């Protein structure tokens, strides 16, 4: 066990919270946002669909899936930046959080 600077640990936490907040904004826009403006979207068509129907049946779900993969990928990068890579071997000195 090694003590690490609380500030760095907090920076890690804030980086994750920021990421999640941004992704949830997109989530809200493609779900609740699209429903709130369904009547307006209905005037447009996309690939044969009325646009509001397309968003509900396909668009929003595809965006959800992309957001989840983006989260997994960026979170891995954040872990890496803070030296939290899961390794089967001992972490080398350069990768620790020690400041």
């Amino acid at each position: 066990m090694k003590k690490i600077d609380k500030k760095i640990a907090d920076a890690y936490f804030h980086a994750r919270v920021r990421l999640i907040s941004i992704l949830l904004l997109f989530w809200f826009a493609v779900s609740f946002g699209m429903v709130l403006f369904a009547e307006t979207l209905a005037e447009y068509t996309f690939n044969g669909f009325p646009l509001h129907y397309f968003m509900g049946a396909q668009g929003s779900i595809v965006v959800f899936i992309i957001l989840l993969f983006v989260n997994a990928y960026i979170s891995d990068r954040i872990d890496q930046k803070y030296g939290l890579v899961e390794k089967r071997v001992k972490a080398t000195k350069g990768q620790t959080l020690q400041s």
Partner: protein
Amino acid sequence: MDTQFLVSLLLIVASFGLYIGIAVFNRARQTSEFFVAGRGVPAIYNGMAIGADWMSAASFIGLAGTVMVLGYDGLAYIMGWTGGYLLLTFLLAPQLRKYGRYTVPEFIGDRFQSKTALVIAAIATIIISFTYSIGQLAGSGVVIGRLFEVDAKVGVMIGVVIIAIYATFGGMKGITWTQVAQYIILILAYLIPVIFMSLQITNNPIPWLSYGNVVSELGELDRELGISEYFAPFESASKWQFIALMFSLMAGTAGLPHVIVRFYTVSTMKAARWSGAWALLFIGLLYLSAPAYAAFSRFILMKQVAGSPIDSLPGWTDKWVNTGLLTMADTSGDGILQWKEIAISNDIVVMATPEIADLGVFVIGLVAAGAMAAALSTAGGLLIAISSSFSHDIYYRIINPRATERKRMSVARWSILIATIVAGVVALNPPGVITQIVAWAFALASGTFFPALILGVWWKRANAPGVIAGMIVGLVVTLTYIFLAKYGGFTILGIIDTGAGIFGAISAILTNVIVSLSTKPPSQKLQDEVMDLRYPEQLTFKDGEVWKDDRVI
């Protein structure tokens, strides 16, 4: 006994033989090298296993029919059941994974250090799983009813017997490779008919790209008939109902005990994130196809069935009329079956369409096998959740802490049996269509577990009195609203029974926050444990300081 009966039965039996075979094979291996060699299951397969757990009768049998009947308004189910995975994966799964308890009631009991909270959570688990399993039993009634060409009620009774035997043997839960096989069969059984219908109607083998024009054409057919267009928004209920239902399904997804449990089987927070992403990709495949299924079914019904003479209807109609879920009556007396004279239950659309479109005995049988797997496996898992909540959390922890292992096992067996029979009795006369019944279970989860878990993980100040009051208020408000809206005609902003979760969640969060703030904060140790959830496994929060574990995990 016709060919169809034999082929369907054979495919059902063969697919179940496959699941059980894999389970037996894996049990034998587990004792030897399995645990030593492998460090948990790769996220992609865990994602498939989550997908199989998730796809119940509601998704497989009920969803496309609901979208077909409700039009745009039915898409609330599609967006709600997929969007909830973001709340789960972003806000709850990694943290609950780190906390490391086996069930949701156990997490709530330990996080708030309160036996009362644990018991209330156990009771809520029982109520939610019970409601959910009614939907599954109703689904098995549809499949078995069609198979034996009997009333769906008789089908439910046969289903109850099969599920009782199946669940007492421990089901096939928890064995990841069985779940993977089940996912593959489920998704094939769902996609093959959609692709065939797409070829038949649009000459395009990719249904997701081709059905847009079919949706537009359905709107035109509706205009000619003088009814509201298929895709017109908010025709069956208000916009607020759509939003309330979607919220309720999303929050319920994040709070459903039997889904969260799946994330405990992964090894790290990182694995939890990737499993969640893969899970939604695999689940999304079915959810992206359901509206296509719905559009093709409606198109076939409107173009090929409606308008034909009433005395020369094809053979499949009788078999479905026998289940009591389809009525075709020439009420106008002109000898022609009109679109408006067809009353088709949401629950038979997926099962009946392959027959209507004449896709052949094999495809029809495959759909029956997929539907049975969806209904039976989920029902089995839910009944096991009920019995473990009762025998472990309530009986062993509260009523009789000195019970022997054998006594507890027998309590568990009896509670499975009683729960199956009671759920079966309710399912004989289902209080709604499958998706609606399952939506109530989600509303209850969003009114009880969602607030308790979100505040428990993200707000260290939340305490035992707060969570107890919150769960009780959430449960009472949601249940009351469901009953008032369904039987009393009481609604707010046009929100009906299925959207009740939004009121439950709001009142539970408010109660939890107000009661927590007006009572003593939780002990420093509990607050430290919540702080600890901010960091991944390698970091530990203790006495205001963060420690890093350099050991190999």
